[in-house]
């Protein structure tokens, strides 16, 4: 097994509300291995972005409570690091791209200037060296002609181009881990295909790890080596992509895969998941998915599910050990 770049152990993230902390991430364990593309999948509100942002501690710390550990490659716990230590990791070792490229970049500042700023902050390159590097980066992500784009403002570029620019900026300092939070959700299918191709290519060249947050199983099928499925603040299933697609074990994963429209099934009924996810501000007894699960029995409502581990490293959080999701496939 490959080494881990990040190892999340028993992470809980609570957000302050008028009635105490609401835990949006509830006791998760997750490893991101070196050189892999890991997909973190789940619906809105399941805590996937909260988890991702916790890795860089991007939450407002006055209103957030962390429990557990996030162990970085060097053995240190990110949650215990001093702000100064963290600054050294952010951007240069662990970088993050966000969903909407239009809001990531400063609309009043030329693309080039924004890119240069990053070099000025993180490195000791001279103006000319930094500019040369920026132009090279723009070319490597296909934003051409680079000289012209360098002088453009964000509004002069399309969404796809801006997402390329933000990828270029994040990769500039050769991070070991790139966290991509819904990087293609705001884009068209054609642009999505281009951006995913680009990420795959850059990952091969640099050997970095990528953690992709997405609600789209299509993105997972496109580029992920491994998948972790999140539901109500917990990771309910992890495994190799192929394994998850062909042999999903957790009922939520089975239903989620079933609800994707597929080619050649024109007009047929899609699988749906009844009800809505549980409210996280109330205590949850038993399995959080029980109320929506078609396999649930009495025990599921009272007893929290155990983590099951299969030989190939496939894990899932369900009391029903005998389920196989062949029907979803």
């Amino acid at each position, binding site marked *: 097994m490959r080494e881990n770049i990040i190892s999340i152990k028993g992470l809980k993230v609570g957000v302050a509300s008028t009635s105490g902390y609401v835990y949006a991430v509830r006791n998760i364990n997750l490893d991101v291995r070196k050189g892999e593309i890991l997909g973190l999948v789940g*619906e*809105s509100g399941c805590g996937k972005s909260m988890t991702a942002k916790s890795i860089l501690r991007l939450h407002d710390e006055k209103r957030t409570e962390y429990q557990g550990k996030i162990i970085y490659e060097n053995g240190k716990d990110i949650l215990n690091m001093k702000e100064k230590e963290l600054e050294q990791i952010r951007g240069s070792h662990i970088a993050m791209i966000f969903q909407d490229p239009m809001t990531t970049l400063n609309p009043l500042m030329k693309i080039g200037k924004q890119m240069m700023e990053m070099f000025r902050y993180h490195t000791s390159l001279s103006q000319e060296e930094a500019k040369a590097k920026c132009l090279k980066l723009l070319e490597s992500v296909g934003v051409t002609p680079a000289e012209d784009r360098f002088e453009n403002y964000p509004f002069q570029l*399309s*969404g*796809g*181009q801006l997402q390329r620019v933000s990828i270029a900026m994040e990769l500039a300092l050769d991070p070991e881990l790139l966290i991509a939070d819904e990087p293609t959700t705001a884009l*068209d*299918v*054609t*642009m*999505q*295909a*281009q951006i*995913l*191709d680009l990420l795959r290519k850059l990952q091969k060249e640099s050997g970095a790890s990528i953690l992709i947050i997405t*609600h*789209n*199983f*299509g*993105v*997972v*099928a*496109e580029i*992920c080596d491994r998948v972790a499925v999140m539901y109500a603040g917990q990771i309910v299933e992890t495994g190799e*992509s*192929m394994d998850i*697609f*062909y042999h999903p074990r957790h009922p939520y994963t089975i*239903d*989620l895969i079933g*609800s*994707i*429209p*597929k*080619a050649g*099934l*024109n*007009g047929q*009924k*899609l*699988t*749906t*998941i009844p009800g*809505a996810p549980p409210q996280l501000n109330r205590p949850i007894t038993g399995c959080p998915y029980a109320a929506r699960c078609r396999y649930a029995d009495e025990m599921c409502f009272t007893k929290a599910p155990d983590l099951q581990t299969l030989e190939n490293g496939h894990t899932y959080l369900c009391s029903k050990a005998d389920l196989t999701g062949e029907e979803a496939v």
Partner: protein
Amino acid sequence: MSEALIQVSHLKKYFQVPKHKDLFVRAVDDVSFDIPEGEIVGVVGESGCGKSTLGRCIMHLTDVTSGSVTYKGKDISGIGRKEMKEYRRHMQMVFQNPYSSFNPRHTIGGTLMDVTKEYGMNKKEGQERIVDLVGQIGLDPVVLARRPSELSGGQLQRLAVARALIVNPSFILADEAVSALDVSVQAQILNMIMDLRQEYHLTMMFISHDLTVVEHVSDEVVIMYLGKVMEKGKAVELFDNPLHPYTEALMSAKPREKPDQETNRIILNGDVPNAINVPPYCRFCTRCRDFIPGVCDKVAPQLKQVSGDHWVACHKICPA
């Protein structure tokens, strides 16, 4: 084949570029197609191809530059506000983002009651109609007392569909109605739309950039690029046998369904070109892999019938 409920013919919508008298964005440029009664027509294209502008022209939410839109044979593209309101009884719309299409300060019930009032129902009729509809879309009437911020995107989008159905329309235009939703919620809404369609004998136009969704719901499909129709036809035929190089590229960009699925991806380089003063020849030729020099950059291809109901605008498929 059933009669066309809505006919769009030679529809053009140009926007003048501010401060430039002779520059126009040709958002919709000579588009013609029919929406047959009882069918769902999907309109697909990348952002900026003019599909939403086309929708707005059909609903008469914006004036058209030229061409016509007819509803049951009557041209509605030039009629006045008052007259159009009568047609809105028959033609309703569902928008992409339910959070911005409901007034955040009003309760859902209040917003829906406004519609019933607007269309002349009395209070009792209105309430009955709304409670009835809310049941049909699978929600509890308690949601009527809530405000949009208290509901999920899926619930709100159901209510947006219910709002469109209040007046019992025969046509609904859905503009990216499921694009902002999670897959499981999207599946709920799509199933619901398919059920309601049966019940209300609805005719629909379904605008989306998501081919998988369009393939799932549509009977007929129109592929648009830079304001022009590139290809149109029966959904089954078009998805089985895409002819236009742009359609092929769009299809190949669909994410695969399984990690080991083979894809023969055609990467479209660059972006959709600027829609200001588009060239008088094929608009797709700058990104086309089947580009024929001397032909594609000289003459604009016409939309031609290749078989039964399948139309394509391409020099490679239909040589002049």
